[in-house]
C-alpha cells in the first residue's frame, strides 16, 4: 500500500505532493507526460534543465498513465512511451488519493473547425512551450477568456505573426468589484501580455469571433464577424481574413473520468469538494481545475490543502483563506466571459459536431433524445476521444447536463496486448 498517491503533476499535483511529503508521508506522483509541470508550467522538452526538482519523499512516475480507477483507491497504471505497445503494467493501492488531472480546452464547433491548421488555444501554447514550434506563420487567436493573451504571446515567442486576438465578449469588469480586487495580484502578468501585444502591434478586438474556417485540405482563411451580447452575428460585419493557423478556446472542460470512476460526486460539472478538498469518497481528494476552472495559482493553493489533508496534517487557516479569495476571482472571471448561446446560429447542417465519428449537426438534430440514446443513434461521442472534445457542445445542443459524457471507465487508450501479457505483472 502506497501512502499518498497524487495523479497529475501540474500546479495542483506538484503542490499536493510537496505538502504531503513535508507532512512526513511517502508520496507517489503520477503523470502521463514525460516531464513535471502540467499545462501552466509545461517544460521545454528540448531543454533538459529541470525546473521542478522533486521534494524529498516524493517518487515521480513519468510517462505513466492512470487508465482505470477502482473504488477502494486502486489505480491501474501503464508506464512507457505513449500508446505503447509494451508499456509496463502496475497496480497501486493508495492509502490516500489526490486527483489532480486538470482540464482541457473547450472549443465550440463552427463550420470548418476540423480543417488542419485549426488548433485549440492550448495546443498552440503547448507546442510553443514544449516543442518550440509555432503552429503557423500568420496566426489568429480567437475565443473567449484571459487565456487567449498568454497564447498570443507564446505564438509570438515561437516566431510567428499574430494577425489579431479576437475576444467574443466585452468583459464587464465594473460589475465585479470584489472579484477584481481578489485578482489584483494577477494585474502585472496581464499588463505584461498586453504590452507584448502592443509591441508587436497585434490588434485586440472584443465582441468579435471566427464564425467559419475555409480551405481545401488545410486552413487558408477564416470569416470573422462582430457579435452582439449573446454572440449572434451582427449582419453585414462578416470579413474574410487570410491566415494559415487559427487557435480557438472557449474556456476549459475538467478531466472528470478518474474522479467519476473513483465514485466521487460531481456538482455543476466539476468534482465536488469540501474546504479540505475532500471528495464524497473517503480518502479521495481532488484539487486544481477538476474542481473548478481557476488558473494555476488557485490550482496550487488547492493542491497544498489537499496534500496536507491527505497526509492527515492540519491545514493552516491562511491557506484556506487564500483558496477562498482566488475562487472569488475565478468566479468573477467566469461571469465576465460567459459563452453566449448565439454560437448555435454559426452552425450549418453540415458542420461536424463530433470530430471523431464525423457526426454533422443535421444527424444530431435527428437523433433520439437522452444521452445514451443520442450516442447510439448519432454516434456522437462514441469515437476515440470518448466525447471529450464534443461532449460539452453536444450536451449544450441537445439540452443534456454538461457532464453527460463524463463516465469513461477506461480513462486512457490501452492496447489489448498490454492487458493480456501476463509476464508484465
Amino acid at each position, binding site marked *: 500500500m502506497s501512502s499518498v498517491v497524487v495523479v497529475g503533476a501540474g500546479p495542483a499535483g506538484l503542490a499536493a505532493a510537496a505538502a504531503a511529503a513535508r507532512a512526513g508521508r511517502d508520496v507517489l506522483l503520477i503523470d*502521463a507526460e514525460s516531464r513535471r509541470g502540467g499545462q501552466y508550467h509545461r517544460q521545454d*522538452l528540448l531543454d533538459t534543465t529541470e525546473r521542478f526538482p522533486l521534494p524529498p519523499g516524493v517518487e515521480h512516475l513519468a510517462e505513466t498513465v492512470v487508465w482505470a480507477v477502482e473504488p477502494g483507491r486502486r489505480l491501474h497504471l501503464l508506464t512507457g*512511451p*505513449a500508446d505503447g505497445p509494451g508499456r509496463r503494467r502496475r497496480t497501486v493501492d493508495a492509502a490516500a488519493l489526490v486527483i489532480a488531472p486538470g482540464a*482541457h480546452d473547450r472549443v465550440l464547433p463552427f463550420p470548418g473547425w476540423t480543417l488542419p491548421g*485549426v488548433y*485549440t488555444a492550448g495546443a498552440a501554447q503547448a*507546442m510553443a512551450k514544449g516543442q518550440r514550434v509555432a503552429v503557423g506563420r500568420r496566426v489568429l487567436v480567437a475565443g473567449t477568456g484571459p487565456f487567449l493573451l498568454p497564447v498570443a504571446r507564446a505564438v509570438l515567442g515561437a516566431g510567428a505573426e499574430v494577425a489579431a486576438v479576437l475576444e467574443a465578449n466585452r468583459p464587464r469588469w465594473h460589475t465585479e468589484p470584489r472579484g477584481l480586487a481578489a485578482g489584483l495580484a494577477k494585474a502585472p502578468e496581464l499588463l505584461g501580455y498586453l504590452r507584448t501585444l502592443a509591441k508587436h502591434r497585434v490588434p485586440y478586438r472584443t465582441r468579435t469571433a471566427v464564425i467559419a474556417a475555409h480551405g481545401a485540405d*488545410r486552413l487558408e482563411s477564416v470569416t470573422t464577424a462582430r457579435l452582439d451580447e449573446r454572440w449572434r452575428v451582427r449582419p453585414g460585419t462578416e470579413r474574410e481574413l487570410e491566415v494559415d493557423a487559427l487557435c480557438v478556446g472557449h474556456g476549459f472542460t475538467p478531466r472528470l473520468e478518474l474522479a467519476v470512476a473513483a465514485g466521487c460526486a460531481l456538482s455543476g460539472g466539476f468534482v465536488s469538494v469540501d474546504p479540505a478538498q475532500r471528495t464524497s469518497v473517503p480518502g479521495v481528494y481532488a484539487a486544481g481545475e477538476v474542481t473548478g476552472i481557476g488558473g494555476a495559482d488557485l490550482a496550487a493553493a488547492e493542491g497544498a490543502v489537499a496534500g496536507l489533508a491527505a497526509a492527515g496534517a492540519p491545514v493552516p487557516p491562511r491557506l484556506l483563506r487564500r483558496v477562498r479569495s482566488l475562487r472569488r476571482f475565478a468566479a468573477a472571471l467566469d461571469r465576465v466571459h460567459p459563452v453566449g448561446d448565439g454560437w448555435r446560429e454559426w452552425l450549418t447542417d453540415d458542420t461536424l459536431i463530433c470530430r471523431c*465519428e464525423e457526426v454533422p449537426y443535421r444527424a444530431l438534430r435527428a437523433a433520439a433524445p437522452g444521452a445514451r440514446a443520442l450516442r447510439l443513434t448519432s454516434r456522437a461521442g462514441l469515437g476515440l476521444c470518448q466525447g471529450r472534445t464534443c461532449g460539452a457542445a453536444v450536451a449544450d445542443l441537445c439540452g443534456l447536463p454538461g457532464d453527460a459524457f463524463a463516465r469513461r471507465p477506461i480513462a486512457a487508450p490501452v492496447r489489448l496486448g498490454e492487458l493480456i501479457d501476463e509476464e508484465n505483472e
Partner: protein
Amino acid sequence: MRVELDGEWVTAVPGQTVAGLLLARGRVSWRTTRAGGAPRGVFCGIGVCHDCLVVVNGVPDVRACQRLLADGDRVRCQDGAELPS
C-alpha cells in the same frame, strides 16, 4: 537522432515529439479520418482529442502529440483505421 518519416530519414532532437517534428517540418496533417477520409493533424496538443494519430514502428493509433521520438523510430501517416503491421 535519426528517425524515418514517411520513408525519408531525417534528424530529430531528444525531447521532440512526433507532432513537434512534423510541425517543425511544416506538415499540418498526417492522417485521414475513418469515415470521411478527411486530413487531420494536431488539434488539442495534449493527448485528449485523438486527431493526431500516426503509425510508429508499425503500430497504428499513436498520438503524435504525446509520443516522444526515439532514435531509429519509423513514423508514417495513418490512413483511416489501420491494423498493426
